[in-house]
């Protein structure tokens, strides 16, 4: 900053030497120091207003210029040390009475809280005053000694005079032992004890002098353990905080016990939150923000975590009760508390999952109870059915179905409740969300009939007339979420396929749009491969529609050209669905019936002609396609003429009715066309003539012999069940009030009976085994050699989107492939493995 320009042309101006200041010797130092010392005394005695700063500053300056700086530094520290012992400690000592010690160190707790507080406050106030006076004085002295500080700190590497002088306060006051006799303790220990005692008083609801404690804490914060003033060596952190944390831990451990005895989870939550807030505030107003992390941790640990499980499992007020009673405020608090402790929320996660599982099992149990009665009922029902009492059976089935619907509805409600909770109380926390999803999936999968029930539930909404035209989309959307939870998707696929087939083939579907929308939604949620079959089914249906129209045109075109048989085509209208066998459930396709004799049902002649005609039409341009007739899922509308029998009454004229019966029913009825009205045919005879499988024949006969409204055939004996050996005859005296008569043909979608379910599961397991086998071959073909563990792992990974494969099934399939010589056992680096052959 200083610069000068020298004019070289003229002789330069003379630089004047500075006046000599370095004169005199030790004696001058003594004079100067005496002057400073007496001023320092004045400063300590708050008597500085008459002092001229410049004079003192200059004195210190001169001493330093005389290279006596370190001597001065030494003198000053000695002066301060003397000052402490002569003037400060006596004041402190008067404040420390035996009572203070007793009260604070708690050896005898006979001193009342009020007295304790008064003594403590007096002590702390005295301490604060001496500290503040010392600080003020030292600020002034430091300013005066500024020049010394500058040289000492840089040249002699000594701490600044301010630092060392407040260090002197620490050594001579706080760490001093105030009593000449008796117990070993230091002033700062007393300070700790008094502050902690006061804070505990405040925790119990007393009012204390916060600013007093705050200033003591500030003092402890400003003092360091050494003169190097490292940040983590503050006396507050080293001397006070550990004690404070320790004592607080005791306090809150004790408090947690008390709360636990009260057995009130909600109160505990509120209290804990309140305490946390209090401690936070206390750190701001009374202690130091440095402690907020530590003390918060203490409260969280002692008051929240340590007894968390005990509180949450409380019977009437615990987590279960909170969820059941929808105590959202409490749950929010719980969430907030636990979130502070651990953002991964392990406790809440576990507790919620447990609760979800419990609720899920409760629902299952409720349904199970309902079901148990129905199952036994149904068993009777089935027997009754076999002995001609279908009503009981269907009623039982109805009940079972409604219990299935109830299960799904309950699960959805439960889910809705937890979702709501998640939104309102848990801030849509993703951890809780996934825990919820997982535990829902868990209990849904624990319930063996979940797939069936969910499919039934959807079926109920999709079916005509079951629910009005209310908005079912949101309901179905929720159902999709459940589908997502299902692990054994293949089983669900199977049921859905079955139910969908029934809806489509019997045109029970409320709306194709809705069906398609739903399948689309499933596709988005679950995946394309999952819905491929369903889409195929729809495609078949629409292709068949076209086919039917075209066939009609074809027949119309034939008319006139071709002779006699055409007349019968005209009489019979064919509504055919050509179904791709892969897309449709096996049983509705007439496959896997197991009876063996189902392939060639003998159709009446007219029908056979019709079939041939259609076959001819269909094969035209579609070479190599094989059509198999599946009468089991068809229906027929036939006009039936009952003869005039009597002269009067309802039987007095010929009656024409439109009958709607199953295809099998039609075959049976048409059988009676060819025999005299009063000839009886036995069950066996009918079976022989039609080659209808016994089961189907039984079902068909039930429809047209037992309900009075559609009793086309008479039965002998006239009981309510059909048994082998029964005889049947055309009921020529049949009367009905309506023209259109519908024989109960198809079973409504209902819960499967135990055997049926077993069958479905067996079939499913078979499919799974095949899928396993396919996956095994696929993997091995590619990898050639693989260890057992890796192989099973890959198979699991490949199949997990459809179902969760059992290890035993995989093993079984591996064994199978080994027998078929696709695979060979081999040792891969000491681990058992396989090699792909061929």
């Amino acid at each position, binding site marked *: *900053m*200083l*610069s*000068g*320009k*020298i004019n070289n042309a003229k002789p*330069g*101006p*003379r*630089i*004047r*030497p*500075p*006046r000599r*200041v370095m004169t005199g010797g030790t004696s001058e130092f003594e004079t100067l120091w005496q002057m400073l010392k007496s001023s320092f005394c004045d*400063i300590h005695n*708050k*008597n*500085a*207003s*008459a*002092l*001229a*700063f*410049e*004079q003192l*500053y*200059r004195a210190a*300056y001169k001493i330093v210029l005389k290279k006596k700086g370190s001597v001065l530094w030494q003198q000053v520290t000695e002066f301060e040390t003397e000052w402490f012992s002569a003037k400060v400690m006596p004041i402190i000592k008067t404040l420390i009475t035996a009572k203070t010690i007793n009260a604070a160190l708690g050896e005898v707790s006979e001193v009342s809280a009020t007295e304790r507080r008064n003594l403590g406050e007096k002590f702390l106030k005295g301490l604060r005053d001496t500290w*503040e*006076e010392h*600080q*003020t004085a030292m*600020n*002034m002295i430091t*300013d*005066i000694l*500024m*020049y010394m500080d*500058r040289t000492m700190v840089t040249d002699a590497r000594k701490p600044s005079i301010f630092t060392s002088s407040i260090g002197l306060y620490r050594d001579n006051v706080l760490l001093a032992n105030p009593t000449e006799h008796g117990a070993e303790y230091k002033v700062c220990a007393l300070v700790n004890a008094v502050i902690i005692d006061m804070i505990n008083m405040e925790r119990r609801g007393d009012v204390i002098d916060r600013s007093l404690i705050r200033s003591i804490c500030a003092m402890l914060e400003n003092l360091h353990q050494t003169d190097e003033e490292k940040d983590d060596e503050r006396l507050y952190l080293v001397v006070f905080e550990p004690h404070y944390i320790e004592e607080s831990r005791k306090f809150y451990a004790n408090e947690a016990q008390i709360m636990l005895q009260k057995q009130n989870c909600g109160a505990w939550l509120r209290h804990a939150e309140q305490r946390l807030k209090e401690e936070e505030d206390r750190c701001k107003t009374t202690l130091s923000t440095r402690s907020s992390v530590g003390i918060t941790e203490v409260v969280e640990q002692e008051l929240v975590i340590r007894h968390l499980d005990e509180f949450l499992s409380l019977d009437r007020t615990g987590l279960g009760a909170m969820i059941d009673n929808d105590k959202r405020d409490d749950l929010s608090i719980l969430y907030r508390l636990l979130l502070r402790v651990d953002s991964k929320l392990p406790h809440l996660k576990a507790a919620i999952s447990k609760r979800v599982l419990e609720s899920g099992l409760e629902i299952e149990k409720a349904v199970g109870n309902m079901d148990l009665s129905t199952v036994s009922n149904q068993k009777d029902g089935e027997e009754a059915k076999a002995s001609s009492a279908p009503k009981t059976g269907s009623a039982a089935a109805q009940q079972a179905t409604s219990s299935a619907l109830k299960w799904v509805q309950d699960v959805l409600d439960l889910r809705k409740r937890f979702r709501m909770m998640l939104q309102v109380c848990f801030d849509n926390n993703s951890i809780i969300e996934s825990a919820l999803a997982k535990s829902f999936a868990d209990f849904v999968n624990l319930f063996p009939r979940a797939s069936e029930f969910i499919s039934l539930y959807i079926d109920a909404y999709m079916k005509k007339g079951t629910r009005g035209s209310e908005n079912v989309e949101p309901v179905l959307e929720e159902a999709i979420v459940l589908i997502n939870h299902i692990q054994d998707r293949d089983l669900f696929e199977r049921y859905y396929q079955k139910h969908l087939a029934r809806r489509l083939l019997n045109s029970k579907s409320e709306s194709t749009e809705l069906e398609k929308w739903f399948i689309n939604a499933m596709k988005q949620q679950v995946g394309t491969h999952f819905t491929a079959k369903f889409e195929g089914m729809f495609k078949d249906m629409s292709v068949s529609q076209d086919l039917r129209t075209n066939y009609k045109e074809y027949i119309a075109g034939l008319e006139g050209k071709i002779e006699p048989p055409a007349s019968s085509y005209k009489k019979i209208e064919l509504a055919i669905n050509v179904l791709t066998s892969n897309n449709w459930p096996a049983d509705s396709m007439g496959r896997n019936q197991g009876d063996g004799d189902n392939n060639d049902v003998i159709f009446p002649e007219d029908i056979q002609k019709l079939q041939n005609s259609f076959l001819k039409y269909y094969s035209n341009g579609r070479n190599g396609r094989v059509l198999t007739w599946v009468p089991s899922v068809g229906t027929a509308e036939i006009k039936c003429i009952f003869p005039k029998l009597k002269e009067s009454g309802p039987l007095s004229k010929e009656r024409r009715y439109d009958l709607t019966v199953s295809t099998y029913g039609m075959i049976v009825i048409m059988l009676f066309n060819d025999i005299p009205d009063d000839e009886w045919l036995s069950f066996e005879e009918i079976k022989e003539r039609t080659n209808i499988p016994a089961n189907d024949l039984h079902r068909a006969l039930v429809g047209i012999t037992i309900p009075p409204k559609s009793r086309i055939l008479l039965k002998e004996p006239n009981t309510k069940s059909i048994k082998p050996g029964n005889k049947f005859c055309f009921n020529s005296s049949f009367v009905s009030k309506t023209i259109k008569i519908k024989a109960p043909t198809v079973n409504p979608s209902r819960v499967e009976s135990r055997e049926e379910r077993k069958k479905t599961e067996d079939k499913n397991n078979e499919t799974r085994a095949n899928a396993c086998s396919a996956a095994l071959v696929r993997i091995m073909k590619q990898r050639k050699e693989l260890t057992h563990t890796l192989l099973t792992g890959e198979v699991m990974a490949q199949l997990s989107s459809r179902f969760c494969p059992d290890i035993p099934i995989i093993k079984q399939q591996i064994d199978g492939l080994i027998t078929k010589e696709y695979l060979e056992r081999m040792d891969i680096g000491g681990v058992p493995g396989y090699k792909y052959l061929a």
Partner: protein
Amino acid sequence: MAEPTNGSQIPETKYITLVSRDGFEFVVPREATKISPAITGMLDPLNNFKEAQTARCTFEEINGIVLEKVAEYFQYWYRNKDQEDVADLEIPPEICLEVLMAADFLGLT
């Protein structure tokens, strides 16, 4: 932090007076002297020394010529402290050394 050592607190004046050994007085803005820690300590109202009460600093070791330069420097600093590329302050070579010493005394380093 602490109560003032003298009960009557003097309001801080905007200008203060610097007095040289030989009696020259220079009035400078109080703000401009903040560059010198020595003068700042001198005038600190918390310390409340005599200088703080009178807003008048007497320098027994600095003569008028040098103190004038010091006062000029205070002004120079005060005007230019927030600017860049400022022209140097001219100091006549003959008082250079004395100014330097005064600067050291006042902590202007």
